[in-house]
């Protein structure tokens, strides 16, 4: 655990960007201007940031319906993301994908995914590609507690071990799949308990703690790059908003306030790095201001951007047909 101050500042920037981005989408969604189903990642920032801090250009990730945080952490442009969420021609997917389908293959972001359990098989493929091409790259599947019960996720873990793939499975356990509790839907105590059945190490980490995630992922990435095969990491935390925007959340109690007050990853990160003297408060404040500007700009540009045109309806189905 000896990250440079630059790396720490960058991770803070990522977490702050995710948080502000999501808080802002939440606010804008309420005005009715943002269409479709939108799932926010606020509260879970340490996972995306902590894992992706170990990755570089060789590496790839696959995400879920709750994908904004993973996108930002893997370097997708938040301005293009916001435009996409608004359905604009300038969006990351030119307005054709929306919140649930933001991807940037050049950045190794294989896509948010509207299908629960859709990502893990794809990650096996990307990891296989890296292995055969000898790039040293790893591939990471982010998925939720709900997705940990999907057969596609489970069999992908087996395949990853059998093929000795440089793959990492990050189970983001935020306590719920929609309204259903993970304590009910996951038949074992910890999702990480499933690792042994698929021949890989499994660990549980505190998802509010950037450093814990970063360290666990660092070990997994090192092992994978080394040819040591896959790892399952379960990250536990709370999502701050509803399942999707509009969710009344009558299935849960005051845990969000509790988490925001006492566990929040951004607060804890700030406390830790400033008290350890790794970064100064002003440095973080400066990031906060820059991020606020960025998010503001993203929203303004999205609102001002043109919508797709009729021609766009029929393009991009095939490379050739």
């Amino acid at each position, binding site marked *: 655990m000896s990250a440079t101050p630059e790396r720490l500042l960058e991770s803070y920037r990522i977490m702050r960007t995710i948080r502000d981005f999501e808080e802002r989408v939440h606010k804008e969604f309420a005005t009715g201007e943002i269409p479709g*189903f939108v799932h926010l990642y606020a509260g879970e920032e340490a996972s995306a940031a902590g894992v992706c801090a170990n990755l570089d250009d060789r590496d790839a990730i696959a995400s879920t319906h709750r994908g904004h945080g993973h996108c930002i952490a893997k370097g997708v442009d938040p301005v293009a993301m916001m435009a996409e969420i608004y359905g604009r021609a300038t969006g990351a997917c030119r307005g*054709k994908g*929306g919140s649930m389908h933001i991807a940037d293959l050049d950045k190794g972001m294989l896509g948010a995914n509207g*299908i*629960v359990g859709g990502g893990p098989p794809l990650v096996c493929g990307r990891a296989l590609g890296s292995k055969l091409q000898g790039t040293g790259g790893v591939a990471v599947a982010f998925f939720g507690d709900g997705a940990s*019960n999907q057969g596609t996720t489970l069999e992908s873990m087996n395949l990853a071990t059998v093929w000795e793939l440089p793959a990492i499975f990050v189970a983001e356990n935020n306590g719920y*799949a*929609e309204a*259903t509790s993970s304590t009910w839907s996951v038949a074992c105590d910890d999702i990480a308990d499933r690792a042994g059945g698929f021949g890989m190490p499994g660990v549980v980490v505190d998802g509010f703690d950037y450093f814990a995630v970063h360290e666990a992922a660092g070990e997994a990435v090192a092992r994978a790059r080394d040819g040591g095969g896959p790892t399952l990491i379960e990250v536990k935390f709370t999502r701050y908003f509803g399942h999707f925007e509009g969710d009344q959340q009558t299935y*849960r109690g005051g845990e969000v306030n509790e988490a925001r007050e006492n566990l929040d990853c951004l607060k804890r990160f700030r406390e830790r790095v400033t008290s350890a003297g790794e970064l100064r408060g002003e440095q973080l404040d400066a990031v906060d201001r820059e991020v606020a500007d960025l998010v503001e700009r993203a929203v303004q540009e999205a609102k001002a951007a043109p919508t797709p045109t009729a021609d766009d309806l029929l393009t991009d189905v095939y490379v050739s047909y």
Partner: protein
Amino acid sequence: MARTITMREAINEALSQEMGRDERVIVMGEDNAGGAGSPGDADAWGGVLGVTKGLYHRYPGRVLDTPISESAFIGAAIGAATSGMRPVAELMFIDFMGVCFDQIFNQAAKFRYMFGGKAVTPATIRTMYGGGFRAAAQHSQSLYPIFTHIPGLKVVTPSTPYDAKGLLVTAIRDDDPVIFCEHKALYDITGDVPEDLYTIPLGEAEVVREGGDVTIVTLGRMVHTVLEAAEQLASAGVAADVIDLRTTSPLDEDTILESVEGTGRVVVVDEATPRCGIAADIASLVASKAFGSLQAPVELVTAPHTPVPFSDVLEDLYVPDAQRVVNAAKAVTSWSR
């Protein structure tokens, strides 16, 4: 007595009354109660769009939340159906069929045939389809042509609250596996629905408007689009027969063929994509069995051969609208060799 209620309420009522009438009827699906194991309300959700709301407390133990394991729980519904239950399983969005299709098309659909007539599989699978919610490519599809393709399945696509209740009751009581397709944009439409239980047979289309100049065959949400178009056509002097298929399998060939005999001109309107779709299926029926009456090419109004786009601008172009139906009807009625 009939009241005006929404399609969501009509479906909920059909489920509730059938559960009350027959204790073999059970309901299962992701968040169908909604809140299993959670500290708050155990039926906080009642389905992602609230269709099953309230059933959980009314029928203790008979509304089951599920993990996100569609193969397992849809398969469980099917397995329970072979064992004397009448399960109604919810496949939240029809788009999710790809993770559980085997249980539906290789198991449920084929048991009776493979086992030499010795199986009965009265499972109903409710599922949401269609565009209009800006829900993009993986949450907006109209995939019933795929189920229609499969022998052994029945496929229902109601267009009104009245039909939804009557057809769902029939589906639940039916001894074959039924895919019951609910258009998400129809949940809030209202219509007169009797309080009492009633059934509508599967395989009987409804002539929802009589005209005589052109036959417009359609289903589901598109019925409303076509009726809007038929109004406009009437003003333009074109009188349309509008046929609501109500079920794509079984298909009511007779009602279609009878109308075409009278009009000689056919438009098929469907929200699904065109290749091997319902529109092609109906056009083919007409070309093979009503050719003698046919006076003009069959016009197909469907979604394009593309995934469903996210942007509202694009999605509005994607889903067939009344104008396209009007144009097609005018084309076929004015066509001559």
